[in-house]
């Protein structure tokens, strides 16, 4: 380990420095927090994990009843309204979960854990935009399928994410039917849906262009048939009636059937252990945390440790944290919007009440009321969490709603344009108005960027024409927007 710096550590591997940020002193500190962090349930989903599962059952039965009623009575009546009410409830809960998700990232003392959660939820992307039930499922997915596994073995994480109902729905696996299965033979003309198989190989494990073939994709798709959802509980189950019988040749090996979810677990374990997966995922991690072009030897060392430990993620992170590239001052990686928003909020040390105040959560248009007339009461401002969620939409990283399975782009170039800058300035000004007026910009700069501050920023902050401008200069400085 060379050149470890508490400032760089907090900025590059956490959500930045702030009044409540506990400094890391060694790379080991980052690793050792992960176990403690996993033991603390996140603020979302709103009703907790068990409560959300109950809500899903309730949702399924109410939706089913409303649909049945509509079929019986026709469209346009009270039954449509029942569906609308249900959707509105779901939408409201999703907005609340979104605010809680931002709040979790700001308030958690385990910043490396939070950043990893954001990395992995993006690696194993699902989108709440897919359907109403997904708006209930995705926050649950992050809480129960991603977060508990991000410091353990990649195999467990992969299986947990892949077999979660959110992923099963998102990649259309729930509708996949083996052509030779009982239902496939009865209906005729069915082909297994390849979407799940393709994304698992291309995005989640081996990586595009790593040498698997279309035949491998097809065989994997067939082997995964039977993995589907139970309609009343929205749980992932194995349905033998849609499962393709026989055996499957994948990546040069032949796999038979157990006739349970273990079929999927088996092949996912194989993919997790493949050396190509080690290199692909190590590279994704290094690109995210270190830079758009991470040193070749870093990725090789991570992949080697991966193979030695059969994908023990904490060990792989440790290799990354011990590499000199992790501690060079000018990494220059542009923060993604979530990182920018959360680190800005953290810089002020906003508390839970300031973040969660969502009196106006029912206002679908947001802005309108507050800006309506010249006498708008300053005190009627929306909560910072709500403002942040809207800002993430405007910045192109809407929470839990990536537009495709590849997730949000991780490249610096993607997040550096003029529109991005303008939105970041606008957000910074608004949160400064909420919490920054009494701060001295020079102290704020010191506490927020510490040794990372550039001479230009120090000079500009010292000479800024007013307090807000000085705080603004810190939050929109290049070094605050990079890590």
């Amino acid at each position: 380990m060379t050149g470890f710096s508490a400032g760089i550590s907090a900025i590059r591997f956490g959500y930045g420095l702030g009044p409540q940020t506990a400094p890391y002193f060694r790379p080991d500190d980052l690793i050792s927090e992960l176990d403690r962090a996993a033991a603390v349930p996140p603020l979302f989903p709103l009703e907790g994990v068990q409560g959300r599962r109950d809500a899903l059952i309730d949702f399924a039965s109410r939706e089913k009843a409303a649909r049945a009623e509509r079929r019986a009575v026709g469209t346009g009546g009270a039954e449509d309204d029942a569906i609308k009410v249900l959707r509105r409830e779901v939408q409201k809960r999703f907005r609340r979960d979104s605010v809680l998700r931002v709040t979790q990232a700001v308030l958690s003392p385990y910043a490396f854990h939070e950043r990893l959660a954001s990395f992995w939820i993006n690696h194993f992307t699902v989108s709440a935009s897919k359907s109403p039930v997904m708006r209930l499922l995705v926050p649950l997915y992050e809480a129960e399928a991603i977060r508990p596994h991000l410091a353990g073995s990649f195999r467990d994480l992969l299986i947990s994410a892949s077999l979660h109902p959110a992923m099963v729905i998102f990649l259309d696996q729930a509708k996949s039917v083996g052509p030779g299965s009982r239902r496939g033979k009865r209906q005729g003309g069915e082909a297994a849906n390849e979407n799940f198989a393709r994304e698992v190989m291309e995005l989640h494990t081996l990586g595009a262009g790593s040498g698997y073939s279309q035949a491998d994709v097809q065989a994997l798709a067939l082997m995964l048939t039977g993995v589907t959802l139970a309609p009343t509980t929205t749980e992932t189950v194995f349905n033998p009636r849609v499962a393709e019988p026989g055996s499957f040749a994948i990546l040069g090996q032949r796999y038979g059937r157990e006739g349970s979810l273990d079929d999927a677990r088996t092949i996912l374990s194989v993919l997790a252990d493949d050396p190509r997966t080690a290199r692909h995922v190590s590279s994704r991690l290094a690109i995210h945390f270190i830079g758009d072009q991470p040193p070749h030897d870093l990725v090789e060392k991570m992949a080697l440790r991966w193979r030695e430990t059969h994908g023990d993620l904490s060990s792989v992170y440790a290799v990354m944290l011990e590499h000199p590239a992790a501690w060079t001052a000018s990494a220059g990686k542009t923060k993604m919007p979530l990182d920018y928003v959360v680190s800005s909020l953290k810089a002020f040390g906003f508390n839970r009440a300031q973040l969660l105040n969502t009196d106006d959560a029912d206002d679908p248009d947001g802005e309108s009321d507050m800006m309506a007339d010249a006498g708008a009461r300053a005190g009627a401002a929306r909560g910072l969490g709500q403002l942040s969620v809207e800002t993430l939409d405007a910045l192109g990283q809407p929470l839990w709603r990536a537009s495709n399975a590849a997730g949000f782009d991780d490249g610096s170039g993607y997040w550096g344009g003029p529109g991005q800058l303008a939105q970041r300035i606008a957000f910074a000004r608004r949160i400064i108005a909420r919490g920054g007026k009494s701060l001295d910009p020079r102290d704020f700069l010191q506490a927020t960027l510490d040794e990372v501050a550039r001479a230009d920023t120090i000079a500009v902050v010292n000479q800024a024409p007013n307090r807000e401008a000085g705080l603004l200069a810190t939050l929109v400085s290049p070094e605050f927007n990079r890590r």
Partner: protein
Amino acid sequence: MKKMTDRILISRRGLIGAACSLAAAPILSPVSLAAVPGDSRFVTIVLRGAMDGLDLVQPYGDLAFRQLRPKLALTPDTGLIDLDGRFGLHPAAAALEPLYRRGELGFVHAVSTPYRDGRSHFDGQDMLEGGGSAQRGSEGGWLNRVLTLTRNPAPAIDVSVTPEMILSGPNPADVWAPRSDIALADDELQMLARLYRNDPAYTKALSDAVGVDAFTDLLRGEAVEDRHGAAAAKLAGTMLRDKYRIASFSINGWDTHVNQKAQFQPAARILSGAITTLRESLGEAAWAQTAVLAVTEFGRSAHENASGGTDHGTGGCAIIAGGAIRGGKVYGRFPGLDDSDLLDGRDLMPTGDVRHIAAAILASQFGISGSALRSSVFPGLQEEARVAFL
């Protein structure tokens, strides 16, 4: 092209266009208000960023002035509005001329707070708002301490935009925000240009964000600016007419380091618009009982610099307005601009203390005794002879 960072002429509108859905904090701050007994009103306007008093009220009769400021100095032949044969008003503040002629507006030149030689905006503003006794905001503002003496605190109302220091403190004051849909003052845009000058990617992003038609935008921007100059003032005026008697707000945009010729104008227009709008929205009767005091943390250097701007200085100019003051005059003892007259050879030498102006107005408007003002509103302020403008 000259180095971008020296003269990045950038418009507000471009940035607003890019950031339209998330309107930002205004150039004008929220208005802080307090109720006190009686019908006399008092408004303070904090001009943040160090308003150049020598540009607003130009000593055009002084030959040294033109030598110090070859680019910035105006004369009545080039648009300056003559006030008294010696001083002239910047044309961007033309809206103030009728008030001046009616005796409802005046200036006090060459004044400052006790803050000297530091030239930090933050410390200067803390000194200005703290009343000379506070640094770094710990003790609240002098206008809040006034409320203790008037013994009639306004009812406390929950606020989420924090009040500015001048009217914050133990006594409750309400905070209201005007419509806030203007993004950045010109000096703040220039500040960003300096912030990004060694970072080509950010420099480009900023200039793209603010648009390429910056020149025309600055020229066309008047209507937009005036409207926004009016927003806080209209709000303040309306509230003062009714329940409240004390109001305070700020106007940003005065940090004119580069290209002051273009940059000073929008801020001067906003200030002028704010004062005339205050008068309109208060109405004749209430205006007659109103005193307005606009002050800045310090003045700017007497010399213009190589970028056509001015640097942080010391002596500045205060603006007084309202039916309760006797205007139509440039007050203060102007020290002159020869090298030997300047402070450290660079700043207008302050010959008066802005706290005396405020104290005189407070005594006259609210009947507060001079000794009470000197002991608790402006601790440490020495007694001074009666001020002429009341």
